[in-house]
């Protein structure tokens, strides 16, 4: 089929040209020296937390806290991370759906953060967005033909006949038929709606598509269909794609490069095959290990992350992942089994956060042991044992020196001297991870990653070896 597509040129006059020529033109025009199409530098998006009648700023949610990455023409880049890591905010602030707090976004050589509203309108024609929920991205009372044609109308194509022509062409390109133009969103399945979403995004003949969880709301059997459609469209239209997903399998199927985000920062960035085959950051390893494989003989996850993502309004000091990292660096002068060390760190953090509630532990013992009538009767020794149990810390620790430090701290906690316990643990069990912030560094296996283990060239932990590489 001769792909006749509309190109919105800079003067805003629509014209119809052959797609393959157009793609070739674009490549000549914008990438003769392999310049990135999109270049994000130090992008930050903070939301102020305000209080009182004067809306005084009392804190900031650092949703995105200084990220850098590039997207090259014709390339697919993925951003992956748990919910709350800032990946969606990164997408919406880099095209200024929300104003970024800091940083620059270069698109085709121009800084779009400097654009006025007229220039933004032209820019938004070149970058289109697709959202997770195809259900809510369509007007239920607008036929899908009209929905696809709407951006054309907005951008100034007044000829109805030509609009219909373009709509019919687009529908066929996304695997629907031209006659579907008269149907309404409720008549389509989720997968079909996401196809229409793609058609609508393509109607502007964009250079780039940003897709925020494009297949998360769809069935597995439909997911791969949509992803392979995106792949085909990318090849045919010469598109760059930025895809945001929490699903590593999706990223792996479609992306050339991937950025792993944690708490507003990129912790690992590299070619998808390299990152998946040889993950360098402990967080990436933990994420990969958490995916259940479709093999019942391979059960039981080697690494399990404890706890939830901390709040971005008060991110942990040093390496932001140190509060959950299974491979957190051990303190000097003590010998720990890595897993035990992680548990001792969990215990320390609880204490530091002031979230360790000895009274609650006594109450728990009260419910378990019938003889006790009030919490005062619960013995210190029993509380101490229960406190260790709560964190699965073995008694005694294998290293007698470490055991002495821990035991005296627990004693202090149970007898009410929490501050003393906090200080003694902080001095004795200090880890560089809580004070030094790692930076993204080139690693031996190709990608960049930010981890103090890499910076200090520490040997890999046992955990690192257990992570499946498939």
């Amino acid at each position, binding site marked *: 089929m001769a792909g006749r597509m509309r190109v919105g040129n800079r003067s805003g006059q629509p014209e119809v040209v052959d797609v393959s020529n157009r793609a*070739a033109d674009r*490549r000549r025009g914008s*990438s*003769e020296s392999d310049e990135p199409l999109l270049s994000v530098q130090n992008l930050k998006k903070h939301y102020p937390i305000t209080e009182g009648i004067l809306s005084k700023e009392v804190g900031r949610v650092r949703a995105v806290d200084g990220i850098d990455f590039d997207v090259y*023409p*014709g390339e*697919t880049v993925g951003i992956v991370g*748990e*919910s709350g890591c800032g990946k969606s905010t990164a997408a919406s602030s880099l095209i200024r759906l929300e104003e970024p707090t800091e940083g620059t976004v270069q698109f085709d050589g121009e800084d779009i953060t400097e654009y006025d509203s007229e220039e933004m309108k032209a820019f938004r024609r070149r970058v289109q967005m697709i959202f997770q929920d195809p259900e809510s991205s369509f007007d239920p009372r607008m036929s899908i033909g009209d929905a696809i044609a709407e951006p054309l109308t907005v951008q100034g194509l007044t000829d109805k006949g030509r609009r219909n022509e373009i709509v019919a062409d687009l529908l066929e390109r996304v695997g629907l038929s031209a006659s579907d133009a008269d149907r309404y969103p409720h008549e389509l*399945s989720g997968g079909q709606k996401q196809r229409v979403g793609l058609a609508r995004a393509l109607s502007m003949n964009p250079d780039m598509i940003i897709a925020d969880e494009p297949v998360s709301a769809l*069935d*597995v*059997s439909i*997911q*791969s*269909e949509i*992803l*392979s459609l995106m*792949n085909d469209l*990318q*090849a045919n239209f*010469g598109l760059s794609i930025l895809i945001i997903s*929490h*699903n590593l*399998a*999706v990223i*792996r*199927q479609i992306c*050339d490069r991937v950025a792993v985000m944690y708490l507003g920062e990129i912790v690992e960035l590299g070619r998808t*095959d390299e990152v*998946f*085959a040889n993950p360098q950051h402990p967080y990436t390893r*933990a*994420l990969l*290990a*958490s*995916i*259940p*494989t*479709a*093999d*019942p*003989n*391979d*059960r039981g*996850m080697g690494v*399990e*992350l404890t706890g*939830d993502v901390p709040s971005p309004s008060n991110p942990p000091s040093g390496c932001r992942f140190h509060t959950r990292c299974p491979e957190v660096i051990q303190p000097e002068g003590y010998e720990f089994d890595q897993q035990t060390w992680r548990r001792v760190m969990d215990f320390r953090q*609880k204490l530091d956060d002031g*979230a360790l*509630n000895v009274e*609650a*532990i006594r*109450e*728990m013992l*009260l*419910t378990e042991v019938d003889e006790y009538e009030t919490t005062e009767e619960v013995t210190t020794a029993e509380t101490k044992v229960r406190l260790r149990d*709560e964190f699965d810390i073995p008694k005694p620790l294998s290293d007698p020196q470490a055991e002495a430090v821990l035991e005296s701290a627990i004693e202090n906690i149970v007898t009410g001297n929490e501050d003393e316990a906090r200080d003694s643990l902080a001095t004795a069990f200090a880890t560089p991870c809580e004070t030094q912030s790692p930076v993204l560094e080139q690693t031996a296996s190709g990608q960049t990653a930010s981890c103090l283990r890499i910076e200090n060239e520490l040997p890999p932990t046992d955990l690192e070896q257990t992570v499946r590489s*498939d």
Partner: protein
Amino acid sequence: MNTTTKARTDSRRGDPLLTVDNLRTVFDTDDGQVQAVDGIDFTVHPGETVCIVGESGSGKTVTSESITQLFKSPPGSIADGSVVFDGDDLAARSEEELTDIRGARISHIFQNPQGALNPVYTVGWQLIEAIQLHQDVEKDDAREEAVDLLSRVGIPEASARLDDYPHELSGGMKQRVMIAMALACQPDLLIADEPTTALDVTIQAQILRLLRDLQEEFEMGIIFITHDLGVVAEIADRVVVMYAGKVMERGSVYDVFDSPSHPYTKALLECLPGHGSLGGIPGSLPDPIDPPEGCRFADRCPYAIEECRTGAQPAFESAAGDGHEVSCVHYQTADDPSVLERVGGDTASESGTQRTGRTDGGTDESGKQERTTGGGRRE
């Protein structure tokens, strides 16, 4: 591995906890009667996890809701069949009798914990309500039990968390609270409908492990509804594969994953993102009001022959493995199932190598190809 499989099977030799026999659940609509679940059979033994897997629209959720008749009636009703729970046919029970069983002997957890918790009451209040609803205990005792339950599902400092409102907890914590609530009366059967779908992978891993541990502790039967085959492989003892209201294949998790027999199961395994075919399963579910004759999957099946489109859904035939059964024409005695292997169905036998091979090679190559074409155009 074989010995553990054997041990599991042996422990199930006793009477099943739940026997679903020829269950048909229909919904009356203006356009006609939707046959959501159309004559399915399966059993759940104590201490066993049965996963019901299928696409949306396959009838897996309606199946789970049919057990204690949670669906809205009318329009929904059980048109035929029996649901025998501990010797008692639930399909014939009145609404009041079912209310006594729900939450007490059979508990449910759902996909969206946010929607299942009341936002205006504390977690503790809701848990205590659930405990007092089915047990005659004083409030203080109920509170103690609530603390105990929350700590069992891995919520730290449970007694302090009792006074939190649902919005103060993360998604994973909320799902833990839901599980605690479901366990409040030590149910014999837990029905979990996509309990981890709304959670991140890291949290999903925590919840799956928790369910496994709790099952051991409480000796519950679990019916686990999911569309995620990775989760099935992680948690199931036995698998029921559903399509368009019918069971296509059932058997132990090892048999179903190691030698998937129904073409639909094969297709599902292949279309896991990054695990094989990039095309998905072409076509869509058949009309649930007027389902086609023959095998429900025939229209989308690459191996369909004429016999597939006539008569009823093929009767179950044994496939590889003990209790592994498949509803496919090609397994009927007169036919030869190896046709499925020959016509490109070789993924089953060498799935392991194929999967990894395809994923890495696939992504890599398409990337390179694009760059080369791009370069070519530039010249």
